[in-house]
């Protein structure tokens, strides 16, 4: 009883702290992922043409990038160590698989990024043009390579593959590196996440350029920046939409409860529609008689198609997933969560028996227990739950976050198309409402970007590793008061740094690139 009380408190504070750090980190990282490529593109034009206009343009965007970069690095450091400080069981239970991408990220990506970013910033007068350009491209590749490895790790948390449980060490061990690296969830997640970063950076560039146009300053710089950003943003959006579709398909197969929560879908059916916009019934709980929605506008059969590539496919809702009994894609009949809990308990008990038998040297009992453990291991994590409804994520949060992300995503596509059309048009002029919309899109793109992660991570709850390790079994045994104190310390520190960052950014933007409107 006391242990349960301890857990609920320290788990909640640890989750809050991790969420805080991750969300702050994700304010700065997506911009880095995208702006480094746009800087490299602009610098390529400079090296090709030799026109100083592009050099000044590159330097301006580099200044904005530099301010953003430092806070991203700082928050990233904490995130890496928080896996150990706050989730010590997690670090052992899956460290054999999860640690590898983090180490590879450091060795292959961080050093590349760090080395060449130094050349980018301090090498203008020390290295040749082409070397500098190469450094800029390698900085962009380094940043994106680091994203690959951390997203491989994250993808594995959503869909654990390429491993086997070792009862002698009480942990999961990697048995196929390529399966971990080319995990479909990880690949989709990588492309979806980095392209969302490109879209964010493109919107920021367009928003800042729109501000210059509104003020009647740096007109040429602004229009050329918009040209690069809108092309880059539009191409990225195409990949983003494609990988968004792949993500839905993937989630339907690997995390059906997440999909049901994202859709606010309680009762599954064949030919399920996609909720375009709706208001989930406040206070709705699994098992009650309330309708799922107060209001819901659906696109017929679309969810079935997105999830299963079949307009008439059955999409299980939360009720179905809890009670089981529906036909799975492979023809088997789904089992209830209660049954999964029972089997999970059987796996945990079998592991206990195995350990004790091994200590006593009783190999026959150990082998029998091991067989039972592996028969039920698929549901191992469920064994930690008493209440089946504990496996349902926060439905309204997932539902709204998903829609915020998707609809804002389409708004950004509209802005890219419109901006590109205007800059390519002869004597094309931006009307004021377009400029205001572009500026307003800057905070919106950050909201969309954060909402995407809320869907991904809150939708995975209560698992740290899908179906294998819930947060209650992953947490470190430390005082919740210690975590509470560090949470508030980080909150205060990060907030101060964010305010400082924004103030510096605004000042630098107001200064502008100081380019005369010479012809390009």
């Amino acid at each position: 009883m006391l242990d349960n009380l301890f857990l609920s408190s320290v788990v909640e504070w640890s989750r809050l702290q991790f969420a805080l750090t991750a969300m702050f980190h994700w304010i700065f990282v997506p911009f880095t992922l995208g702006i480094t490529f746009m800087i490299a593109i602009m610098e390529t034009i400079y090296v090709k043409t030799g026109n100083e206009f592009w050099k000044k343009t590159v330097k301006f965007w580099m200044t904005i990038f530099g301010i953003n970069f430092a806070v991203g690095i700082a928050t990233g450091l904490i995130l890496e160590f928080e896996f150990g400080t706050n989730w010590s069981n997690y670090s052992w239970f899956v460290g054999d698989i999860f640690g590898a991408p983090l180490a590879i990220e450091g060795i292959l990506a961080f050093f590349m990024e760090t080395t060449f970013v130094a050349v980018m910033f301090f090498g203008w007068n020390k290295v040749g043009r082409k070397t500098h350009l190469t450094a800029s491209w390698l900085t962009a590749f380094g940043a994106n390579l680091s994203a690959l490895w951390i997203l491989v790790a994250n993808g594995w948390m959503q869909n654990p593959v390429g491993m086997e449980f070792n009862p002698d060490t009480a942990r999961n061990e990697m048995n196929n590196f390529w399966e971990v690296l080319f995990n479909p969830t990880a690949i989709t997640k990588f492309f979806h996440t980095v392209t969302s970063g490109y879209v964010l950076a493109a919107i920021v560039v367009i928003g800042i350029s729109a501000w210059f146009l509104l003020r009647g300053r740096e007109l040429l710089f602004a229009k050329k920046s918009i040209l690069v950003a809108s092309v880059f943003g539009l191409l990225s959006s195409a990949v983003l939409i494609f990988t968004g579709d792949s993500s839905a398909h993937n989630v339907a197969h690997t995390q059906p409860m997440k999909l049901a929560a994202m859709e606010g879908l309680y009762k599954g059916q064949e030919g399920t529609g996609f909720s375009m916009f709706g208001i989930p019934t406040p206070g709705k709980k699994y098992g009650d008689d309330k309708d799922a929605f107060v209001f819901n506008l659906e696109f017929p059969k679309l969810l079935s198609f997105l999830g299963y590539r079949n307009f008439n496919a059955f999409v299980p809702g939360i009720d179905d997933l809890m009670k089981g009994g529906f036909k799975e894609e492979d023809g088997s009949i789904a089992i209830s969560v209660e049954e999964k809990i029972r089997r999970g308990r059987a796996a945990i008990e079998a592991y206990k028996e195995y350990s004790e038998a091994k200590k006593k040297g009783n190999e026959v009992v150990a082998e029998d227990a091991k067989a039972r453990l592996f028969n039920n291991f698929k549901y191992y994590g469920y064994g930690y739950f008493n209440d089946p409804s504990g496996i349902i994520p926060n439905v309204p949060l997932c539902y709204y976050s998903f829609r915020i992300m998707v609809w804002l995503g389409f708004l950004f596509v509209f802005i890219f198309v419109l901006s590109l059309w205007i800059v390519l048009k002869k004597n094309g002029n931006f009307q004021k409402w377009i400029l205001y919309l572009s500026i307003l899109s800057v905070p919106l793109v950050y909201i969309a970007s954060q909402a995407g992660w809320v869907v991904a991570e809150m939708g995975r709850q209560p698992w740290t590793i899908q179906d294998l390790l819930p947060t209650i079994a992953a947490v470190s045994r430390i005082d919740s008061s210690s975590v509470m104190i560090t949470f508030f310390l980080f909150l205060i520190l990060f907030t101060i740094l964010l305010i400082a960052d924004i103030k510096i950014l605004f000042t630098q933007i107001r200064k502008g690139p100081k380019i005369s409107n010479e012809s390009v």
Partner: protein
Amino acid sequence: MDTTYILLQQYWWFLVSLLGALLVFLMFVQGGQTLIYTLGKTEDERTLIINCLGHKWEFTFTTLVTFGGAFFASFPLFYSTSFGGAYWVWMAILLFFVVQAVSYEFRSKANNLLGKKTYEWFLILNGLFGTVLVGTAVGTFFTGSMFSVSQEKIANLGGNMTISQWEGPAYGLEAVLNPINVALGLAVFFLARILGMLYIMNSIDNDRILARAKKQLLYNTIPFLVFFLFFTVCIMLKNGFGFSVEDAGNSKAIIRDDLPYKYFNNFIQMPVVAALFLIGVVGVLWGIGSTLFVRSIYTRGIWFAGVGTVLTVLALLLNAGWNGTAYYPSTSDLQSSLTIYNSSSSKFTLTAMSVVSLFIPFVLAYIACMWRLINRKKLVLNDIQTESHIY
């Protein structure tokens, strides 16, 4: 006994030790930060020093992150036990590194909210606590910590399910009560300052700063030698934590804490490691001595002291983990002590990671190449007026 697995475990302890050694060397950035007011008497001089160090701060940071990642991948039980237990020590280290990262970028920017001086003090605090705390934490590799490990606990439904847990109320802060740990912490602090001075002398062309650095070098060498000698003598004379060398590869080897002169004997039984240690110490002293005792200003001391630092720290960490030694001993439950055999990743993961490690020479090569390009010319006061990106 799987000899390949044993080799992989030893190889990864070597790599982690090497990363740790490089991290201590790169802490010249932290050491230099504590000297910005001592060596820089005017605003321009301070800006020059900060920019000189600022060109390298990301390398220290990246090495710290990679060190953490490599430790996680190769010895996850250490990650789980130390980070999850010595919570306050690691959180304090992280906090002091976070403020460093932003201080360089924000310091000289207009409208930076906290003012230039605050960011300079952030750099000083990072230099002081970052080095002392890392050194103190590493000291526990020789003196022990209060934790217990029991893998079976993960199946303890309804009870305490935590595999590794700290057994003291201070979550790692109790390490500062042990004089050996503190001595190492302070030795690392003064060494970082010495390396910082030598690096600045090698990278800046300014007579006044160089003269001040040379004077300060002596003041910092004395406490460094006192604390380093105290630490070294203490660990060489004390009983050590370890197990029979015949048990190499055995994750269930019986750990003992009464092995007389364990760390001294490790050097005797591993003469190459002992030689690395001695060469390293001589290198550090040579770097300092050549700078102090050559009449004119000698600026190449960082090369000797830097290589010496890497070799010394590498040898100390190898001593802590090889030759049947428990590298992270537990004073609460001796059999919970971590060895490279009971805390490592699986053979498969270590093999996969070893393939990746083949890229390390390539990474080091491009870093060296780019450093050379950037550092070809020494920094002068005029540079802070002409550079487009200034910290």
